[in-house]
């Protein structure tokens, strides 16, 4: 898979407090906010039918199963984190065309959601959304 450029956000899963308390272990059943994990929009046919990245014109988003590793780079600072698939998401089609920039570094469309542990390794949780690139190496 060639590096995919887009937006990264974060989500909670597993045992959690507050509104996240009902999050559960995700589509793979293993998701935990404290682990280096992520949600990927194309983990299965059923997942892809929900996330629909193609509706935003995204091609090259390969089918990857639970445990597959991706490496996400925050385009604002170059920080990079490796994570394993633990859930289906984000729901890309709900934000088609959305664009996030840091100066001239931009990403369009939501392509990956990281757990709080993983996102906070490359950005402050209070940023909520960052332009990113995602690769398999």
């Amino acid at each position, binding site marked *: 898979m060639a590096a995919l450029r887009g937006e990264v*956000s*974060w*989500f*909670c899963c*597993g*045992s*959690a*407090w*507050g*509104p*996240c*308390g*009902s*999050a559960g272990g995700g589509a793979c059943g*293993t998701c*935990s*906010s*404290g*682990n*280096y*994990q992520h949600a990927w929009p194309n983990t299965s046919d059923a997942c892809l039918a929900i996330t629909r990245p193609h509706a935003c014109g995204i091609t090259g988003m390969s089918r990857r199963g639970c*445990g597959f*590793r*991706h490496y996400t780079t*925050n385009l*604002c*600072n*170059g*920080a*990079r*984190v*490796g*994570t*394993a698939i*633990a859930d289906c998401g*984000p*729901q890309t089609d*709900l*934000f*088609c*065309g*959305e*664009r*996030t*920039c*840091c100066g001239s570094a931009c990403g*369009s469309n939501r392509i990956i959601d990281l757990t*709080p*542990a*993983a996102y*906070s*390794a*490359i*950005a*402050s*949780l*209070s940023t*909520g*959304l960052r332009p990113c690139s995602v690769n398999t190496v």
Partner: protein
Amino acid sequence: MDQTLDRRRLLATAALGGVVTATGLGSLAPEAAFAAEATTVEPGAPDPNFAEGRIGKITGNMLLVTGSDTVLHSIRITDGTSIWKLHPTTFDRVAVGDGLYARGVRLPDGTLAADAVWVNIVNLHAHIAAVGRNVLHLDHKGRRIVAHVVPDRSAAVYNGTPAVSDMSLLRVGRHVQVLGAWHPDTNEIDIATVYAAA
């Protein structure tokens, strides 16, 4: 000098009672600070330098936190710790019962010397069920969340455009991402930022 090692030594010094000036850690801009952290955790594995849970006790500059998985964490707040609770804020605004995520450096005694603490932060994907005066009623995983608009703080980002305080374009039925701060033990949050598709 390696910036990561330098930062870790500063945090450890602060955690052990040394003096760290704001200038010492503040020399790194927020994004640069995260870029400076080395990542050595295996994909899929838990990060020992990260903790989450609810604050059970505050003693001096130490937070005693019970993780959602029941693991206990001792989290030390240093002069260099950044604290977020709807806004960037100070240690005196942190309270027993608050939820948190924390990132820092795990010391040999198991204490986490915190680099950053996000108190009560939530990042919810939801649908707008109703819009009231300075409040959004959200459907989040089948449960109702009452999201308060906070004057001079809450902002809306419409399809990636710059954040604005005007919430008038938010419509019932639309999907939103809401970054905010939870009111402990309630179904209410304060809104920091609402991300909405156009």
